[in-house]
């Protein structure tokens, strides 16, 4: 057996293995690849009754429509800006947490602190959204109570678009940083203790050890985490943003991201084609972002690329 019948030969020879993989392969075909056909809708005037193959083809009209409105700039900017904030503050805090947790010598304190910072990761965004409300609702919220106690006026937070990028960043860091810090903590634990012994002999303070040993050795993992983040810079976290903001239109100028915008186009306006065009634009930009930044990372540091 060789050459021409290679495919069938391979399948038959390892039939049990391919049988093991079959559910996974079917899953990918049905739930990951079949829906990609949906991108075709972006070039159609899709009507449910006519279906995918009966609807009228309209070329790039949906895109003209999308790029013709000012919305596309707004949602693209919001997505990139929010993700930028999340990335910088999320990673920054996670690294700080990991480095500082590593400095703690008391076992009990370290374990307790770690448990607390890890806790928010376990709850859903809807629960988080409920907690955000207990903080920021205008009448019952803790924020406004604190403000009035201090002699200031309470504010209608849910009517102030300007502050929400920062509230969302805070909430994001609150939920994710503890979880991410474990990845960094794991790499710090992997650093050989000889480095630190040497540094101590030279008389380096603990702060200097962090700056000259820990952080430089964390560089590869920091770059990988940043790359993963940048690769997803065009994807808003729908679960998070829609849970917290929902349909509060006043806040859209700063919080409406590509995903929430596409969701509303689909579910509230029933415009499948428009929604499709937006998503295709997003997927395309996402792909370019991953490839570009991966290329960039390879230039800067050849060990740190993703693929």
């Amino acid at each position: 057996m060789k050459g021409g019948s290679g495919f069938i030969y391979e399948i038959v020879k390892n039939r049990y293995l391919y049988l093991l993989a079959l559910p996974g392969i079917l899953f990918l075909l049905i739930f990951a690849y079949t829906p990609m056909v949906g991108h075709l809708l972006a070039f159609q005037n899709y009507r449910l009754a006519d279906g995918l193959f009966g609807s009228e083809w309209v070329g790039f009209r949906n895109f003209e429509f999308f790029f013709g409105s000012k919305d596309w700039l707004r949602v693209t900017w919001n997505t990139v800006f929010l993700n930028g904030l999340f990335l910088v503050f999320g990673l920054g805090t996670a690294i700080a947490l990991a480095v500082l947790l590593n400095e703690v010598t008391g076992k009990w304190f370290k374990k307790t602190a770690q448990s607390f910072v890890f806790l928010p990761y376990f709850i859903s965004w809807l629960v988080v959204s409920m907690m955000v409300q207990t903080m920021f609702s205008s009448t019952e919220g803790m924020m406004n109570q604190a403000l009035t106690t201090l002699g200031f006026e309470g504010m209608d937070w849910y009517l102030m678009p300007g502050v929400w990028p920062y509230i969302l960043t805070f909430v994001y860091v609150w939920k994710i940083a503890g979880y991410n810090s474990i990845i960094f903590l794991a790499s710090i634990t992997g650093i050989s203790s000889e480095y630190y012994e040497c540094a101590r002999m030279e008389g380096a303070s603990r702060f200097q050890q962090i700056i000259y040993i820990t952080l430089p050795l964390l560089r590869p993992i920091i770059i990988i985490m940043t790359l993963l983040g940048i690769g997803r810079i065009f994807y808003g976290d729908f679960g998070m943003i829609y849970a917290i903001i929902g349909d509060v239109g006043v806040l859209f100028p700063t919080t409406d991201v590509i995903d929430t915008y596409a969701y509303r186009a689909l579910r509230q306006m029933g415009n499948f084609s428009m929604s499709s065009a937006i998503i295709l634009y997003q997927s395309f930009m996402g792909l370019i972002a991953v490839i570009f930044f991966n290329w960039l990372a390879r230039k800067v540091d050849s060990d740190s690329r993703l693929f």
Partner: protein
Amino acid sequence: MRERIFVGFVYVFLTLFALICFIPFWIVMINSFANEALIQSSGYQLFPTSFSLDAYAMLLSGNQVFRSYGVTLFVTTTGTVLGVLLTASFAYVLSHPKVKYRHVLSFLTFFTMLFGAGLVGFYILIANWLGLKDSIWALILPYLLNPFYAFILVSYYRSLPYELNEAATVDGANDIHIFFRVIWPISLPVIATVALFYALQYWNDWYLSLLFIDNYKLHPLQMMIRQLMSNLNAMSYVGGSQTDYNIIVPTYGMQLAIVCVTIGPIVFVYPFVQKYFIKGMTLGSVKG
């Protein structure tokens, strides 16, 4: 001296951060036991001065919370079991040196992380082509294979000595046998980690129910939270038809109570699973 200032800073920073992480949980929990009138008049309190079980009584008086619990439990257990089985066996094949097409399969898996199908195609697939609207399977099937978790498993399987496999083959076992009898038992720690990831994802998901579940009888707990947050007629949603206009519905209290009911189990298992999570994350970060 400077060392001591530094150490002091470390402890202060960590204590503050830990407190900030914990306080929202505290507020939700303690205020779910507060009197509705107190919340309405003076807002949420760090230490409420009144105590009441009204919110819980109201929440548990109807059927909805039990229905939703049932839905969430079913979705989480079924989803986790199926997801782990599917992901573990698929990942095993991706890591198996005998499989000629493992790189093709890996790429096909990886590519879905780069270029998504998007909301519309996904929605049409589930709702129209598969006809799963208002079906509990719409909450389970779409999450059965997470590429990221699959790659965690792949990098673990790759670290196993291949001799295990050869020894079993010599004994005449086929690959399915080898996987379940030999590989599965020794991968239990990683499989447990991945199982926890899946369980958490299913327990906390509300995206799928938002898209596909309109029938309130199939609302999972997360959807119930959402309904209670936006629904002013909380009473009819929770209690069904019985409506008594003379009582004050503890809307705020009920919102907080359902949150406590939802995160209760997670907080209880949390101390036990924490070390698994940490182990799993460490394995995942090694990256295959």
